[in-house]
């Protein structure tokens, strides 16, 4: 089943009177349970593409369909609902709320999904369980290591059982051991049936994925599949 379909997507910025094409005619389809890596040098447009897929940004022109529905005609509430229920974000800098415990951080998407407290606690601890942090639930981010923080972030991305996990340089701020642990989690999630999209510039990370897309100057220059 096709989850994401991008047709002739352009994103054009006007910077100081000069036209900058961050995305320059992207065509891309992503199916369920794909494991995709987006690569490219900085400025190639991979972050813009990532934000576009994540419904944080809208294209200047082109058609974006998410699970068959046109994204560019949606209003704020519909976009927020897709981000909440269908997409799980994992950021390079973790982006956890510093004053909240791991448990509470993971609960936040459920609050926005209007799920009741008792169920929130159950779902959040299940998610933390699945990333191996069942004994760190009541720690605050500053009491956790970098790898543990990123695992909390992954639990937060997972907790609403989304269609896609979008990870932007998830190992960029981690040492290689923690990085490997994080990649093991992604691999496991993929085996469980999740669709995973990683943005990275490190080859060894990209090699974990089954499909690699290279971007350059806002265009797809390579779309390679690898059998697993």
């Amino acid at each position, binding site marked *: 089943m096709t989850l994401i379909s991008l047709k002739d997507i352009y994103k054009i910025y006007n910077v100081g009177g000069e036209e900058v094409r961050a995305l320059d005619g992207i065509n891309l389809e992503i199916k369920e349970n794909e494991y995709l890596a987006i690569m490219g040098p900085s400025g190639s447009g991979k972050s813009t593409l990532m934000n576009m897929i994540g419904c944080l940004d809208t294209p200047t022109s082109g058609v974006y369909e998410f699970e068959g529905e046109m994204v560019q005609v949606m209003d704020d509430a519909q976009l927020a609902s897709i981000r909440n229920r269908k997409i799980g974000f994992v950021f390079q800098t973790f982006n956890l709320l510093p004053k909240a415990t791991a448990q509470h951080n993971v609960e936040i998407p459920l609050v926005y999904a209007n799920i009741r*407290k008792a169920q929130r606690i159950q779902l959040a601890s299940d998610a933390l369980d699945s990333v191996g942090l069942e004994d760190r639930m009541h720690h605050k981010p500053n009491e956790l290591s970098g790898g543990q923080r990123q695992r909390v972030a992954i639990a937060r991305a997972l907790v609403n059982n989304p269609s896609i996990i979008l990870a932007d340089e998830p190992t960029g701020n981690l040492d290689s051991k923690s990085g490997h642990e994080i990649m093991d989690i992604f691999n496991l999630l993929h085996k469980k049936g999740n669709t995973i999209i990683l943005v990275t510039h490190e080859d060894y990370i990209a090699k974990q994925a089954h499909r690699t897309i290279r971007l350059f100057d806002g265009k797809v220059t390579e779309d390679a599949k690898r059998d697993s």
Partner: protein
Amino acid sequence: MFSLFIENFRISLSAVLANKTRSILTALGIIIGVLSVTLMGTLISGLDRSFESSMSWLGKDILYISRYEWFSDMEWWEIKNRPRLLPEYVDKIKERSEYALAVAPVMQRGASLSYKEKETRTEIFGTNEDYMETINTDIVQGRFFTSNEDRSGSRVTVIGHGIKEAFFGEKDPIGQYIQIDNIKFRVIGVLEKQGKFLGLFSVDKQAILPLGAYKRLFSRRGWMRLSVKIPEQKIEEGMDELSAVMRHIRGLKPSEKNDFAINQTKAFEKQYNTLKVAIGGTGVFITLLSLIVGGIGIMNIMFVSVKERTREIGVRKAIGATKGMIMGQFLMEAVTICLIAGLIGLFFAYISSIFINKIFPSTLPIGLSISAVIMSMVVGVISGFIPSYQAANLDPIDSLRYE
């Protein structure tokens, strides 16, 4: 939506608690606003109460004849040039007036009272046997003096409750002799306990003597006023009649103006209402001013809070918060600061009202307290609106990149 509300409240509380000093400084305007409006209410409630009891002590059915109008701005020499009121008016008024139920002449001065080694300064009053009908006070012990005692210049006195307590404590004062400016008087009665008049002076510290003795011993030519009791429904008529009687006594021609004044407690009421408006107006002005200043402070700190948490806003949007939810979160924060400020203000107002109550009886009005807190929350909504709107409309991508 309820869980979101709880969550927002939790976020707000932790944001306020994380910046305690900042929050309290910000909220100072609101605290002062709530404090001033509630204290003003307390003050007015206390004034109302003491005014009412003081007015009932004066009596609404009493007219007071004297040389000057109460609360008038007449020149002192003009008053001084008016003829004095004389004790013989009492009988003349009784003779000619239909409405006058009782007429009491009252002369007053300061004097020193003593009993054994105890001594106190107080006001003494010289009057006649009608006096008790012109005040709303009863005799609790003994009796009032008679017209015979007045005429014969007997040295007897009725003392206020405060004097009795100070001099005699629990002992029976009736038949005891006290000294008024070193002249012996026999105590024949004690007045009921009254409290303070308008919260200013105690009417319990007084001694009442027959006018005969008073005039002979203390003041032959002092100022005198007349208290005239009139049926309560006939005040206006009584006033007109009394004026005519007085003009007749004075032998005034129709072209001449009155050279006396007839006062009634309404004059107090009018004066009092002016005072109340002045206190209320000042209070409202201070309150509005501090709420505006407070509101600007809250707005300012909310802009700072939005700026500081730009990244958090980006994250929240990425994981599914709508604009409305972000707006709600920051509005809630502004309202929470204001609510806490309102409650702090109310707390101080309550403490202050306890002390005010010791000076004169008053209570913190509950309705006003609740409205003051609601008002401060409204200030929170108003001043939090623009910063929250700004937060809600931040671009999620830019906010996520914000360092």
